[in-house]
């Protein structure tokens, strides 16, 4: 306890200048929403459409303020359905697109997420999670959408989801999301939450690690004899995209389709198409898998977390180690597809895994699936309050 209340009414107690004058440091006072916007703009995002919703609205406002001056287009749609629809149309016409919402809006994205999967559209979707279900609490944080983004559209086909755990990671992983969207032509989610997006923090600007976002792999628009729009052989390959507005007509469809995007129900073609939609992602887990493994060979307990709760985990680990407790920690940055090899590797030698998350234990079930022979403890909170380092520290003592 730093405050000397004995002198509290007498005058200043802290005026002592540091005896070792440190090098002057520059830090920014900002939040995750701003970092996400900056990441998107640095990734070359030139089209954004969204609908106001707490706590994602600051992203909408910043994108609509900044895009026109940069030659891009920012739209407030009449609803979330229109917003993601405009994004998909714009993406197929060459734009780098993003939308942002929270759980209730994600519900309205659902059908179009499926269409972006089916039509192989590169799109980044930011989910600033808030406490649900339903309207829930708009200004209360949660991590309740981690399974929703994975299973939130009909069919059960894979998507990619990244989860930043710091403001600087909001920047970096948003850029990474754009890169992965280009690489795999699919929806890529950035899973933030109210606390991460809106709480102001001092940030060391050198921590904004830029990502080299690849150019879109497109069929030459001048090509008058282009290959078919879609190809499924080999199934794991992602073919260059064909955009509207080139020198040849291009077809796009959300229905099961042949290589020329004509509707078909022929089982051999539909089977190949759907196998491709799965394997183009699952066969390339190594390109997507991102974790921060802080491991101790002698640890009995491995803590696993993601997003804002990973911050509490980091502080708990520091406190536990200061007491001599041997403990390991794994922050998962790529939630989907589940980075199974990284999780298995981090769990080698531990007798117990603790998974901390702000939902009813939603990602714990993935850990249980990956580590069927390890004791797993779920620290799950759904009362809108952050899991504190103390709460985790108690568990690993």
């Amino acid at each position, binding site marked *: *306890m*730093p*405050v000397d*209340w004995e002198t509290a009414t007498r*005058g*200043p107690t*802290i*005026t*002592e*200048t540091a*005896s070792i004058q*440190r090098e*002057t*440091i*520059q*830090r*920014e*006072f900002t939040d995750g929403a701003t970092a996400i916007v*900056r990441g998107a703009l640095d990734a070359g995002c030139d089209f954004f459409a969204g609908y106001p919703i707490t706590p994602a609205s600051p992203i909408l406002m*910043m994108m609509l*303020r*900044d895009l*026109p*001056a940069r030659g891009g287009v920012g739209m407030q749609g009449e609803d979330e359905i*229109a917003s*993601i*629809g405009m994004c*998909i*149309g714009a993406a*197929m*016409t060459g734009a780098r697109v993003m939308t942002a919402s929270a759980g209730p809006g994600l519900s309205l994205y659902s059908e*179009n997420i499926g269409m972006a999967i089916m039509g192989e559209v590169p799109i980044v979707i930011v989910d600033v999670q808030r406490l649900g279900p339903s309207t829930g609490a*708009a*200004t209360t944080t949660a991590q309740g959408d981690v399974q929703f983004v994975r299973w939130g559209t009909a069919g059960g086909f894979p998507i990619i989801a990244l989860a930043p755990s710091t403001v600087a990671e909001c920047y970096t992983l948003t850029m990474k999301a754009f890169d992965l969207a280009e690489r795999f032509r699919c929806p890529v989610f950035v899973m933030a939450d109210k*606390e991460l997006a*809106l*709480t*102001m*923090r*001092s940030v060391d600007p050198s921590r904004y690690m830029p990502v080299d976002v690849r150019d879109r792999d497109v069929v030459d628009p001048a090509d008058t004899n282009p290959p078919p729009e879609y190809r499924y052989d080999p199934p794991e390959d992602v073919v260059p995209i064909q955009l*509207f*507005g080139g020198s040849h*007509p*291009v*077809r*796009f*469809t*959300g*229905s099961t389709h042949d290589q020329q*995007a*004509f*509707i078909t129900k022929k089982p051999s073609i539909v089977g190949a198409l759907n196998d491709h939609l799965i394997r183009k992602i699952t066969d390339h887990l190594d390109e997507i898998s991102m974790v921060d493994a802080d491991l101790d060979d002698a640890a009995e307990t491995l803590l696993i977390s993601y997003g804002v709760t*990973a*911050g*509490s985990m*980091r*502080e708990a680990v520091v406190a536990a180690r200061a007491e001599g407790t041997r403990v390991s920690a794994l922050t998962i940055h790529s939630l989907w597809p589940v980075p199974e090899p990284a999780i298995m590797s981090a769990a080698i030698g531990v007798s117990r895994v603790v998974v901390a998350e702000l939902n009813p234990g939603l990602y714990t079930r993935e850990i249980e699936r990956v580590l069927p022979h390890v004791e797993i403890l779920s620290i799950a909170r759904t009362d809108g*309050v*952050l899991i504190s380092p*103390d709460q985790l520290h108690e568990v690993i003592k």
Partner: protein
Amino acid sequence: MSLELLPQPTLRTESDYPFCPGCGHGPVLDALNEALVNLELAPHEVVIVSDIGCSGLSDQYFTTSAFHGLHGRSITYATGIKLIRPDLTVVVIMGDGGTGIGGAHLLSAARRNIGITVLVLNNFNFGMTGGQHSTTTPEGFLTPTTPAGNLEHPLDICATVGVNGAAYSYRGTSFDDDLPDRIAEGITTAGFAILDVWDLCTAYFVRNNKFSRRQIDSTMEALGLESGVLYRNDRPEFASAYRKLAEGQHPGLRVKTVESAAPVLLDTRRHLVVAGSAGGRVRSAARLVSLAAMRSGWWSAQRDDYPITVKSGHSVSEVIISPDEIHYSGVDKPDVLVVVSDDGLGKSGPYLESMDSGGVVYAAAGLDLPRTEAKVVTVDPASAETRIPSASLALAMVASAIHHTGLVSFESFEATAGEGSFGDKNLELVAVGTSLATS
């Protein structure tokens, strides 16, 4: 000499339409083809965006670019395409079903006046799913979902978009000879154009209602609806207007850093909570503390809480200042709690409960504080030489608390408060705050 017939230009594929005998969709699509040919548009210059239903099959019978999306959402995709490439001709083909489920998009596209052309193949029912009633089914007509007759009034598509800013709206039938010209007219209109084309669904609506070409006309008359070009609005097209408006705009986002100009030692993490009322500049007072901490070379975090009715009720800011990076932004136990008003007191219960004898509460005089183990310092705003406005009390009390506790360096706090356009005013308040009587 031999006569060679030149092939007629067309944007149709060689496939026959898949529609039922007598269905009106084929003739309307032929009219669209004729319009596109007459406008001398090349296939790659046209994007046909098709909806869902029988009309949704249309794009496959054209050699143009095509986007076959979700039910009712075709206008949204078309809007995205047009916004990126205003030079493309974007034609939406949808049924009356699509105008119902996508009603919000129809309205918004009209209001924006986005330069797309919407062709509604309006046959008064859902032909692909069994003939169920739609938003355009006239009253009294029979469908499988209105077995005793439809009770709902049909949507007047043209008037709806027409009074909401659409550049062009036309109502006609699949039997109209001038349909190709009207479609071409819609396409060449710069803004949002809609053509509500009534036609026959021989599979269901004709069968269920003994409906005919003649009844299309009589129904229109009975509803008091006219045909022809009904509404024109001379408004700027959205995509062009947006680009024009964008010229001269400047990006607002920039990295603004705080320099650790006056480093001060800090041994451990500290927590401040300022609890007051909306409009009381609680957040900006707390922000000065956060920035002052950064000026001293520390890390800080600030979480603001206020009701969605931003100008009434409480406003609470939690500030953490720390010698090391902050990964957990919760404040479980404040070291200093500043209670500015009753609204703030109402939110202070958990803080007061968590605080022990090491904590200090700075409370405005007159507040009825519950028992707490923390040291309580009462600050009397009435002791100021001039009356402190309620919107300034938070800053004055925070200044008082910082001056007394040294939670952050007072010098850094003062230097931070003095920055910017409110600097002088802030410094006055800081001075007033430090002079307030405490007990």
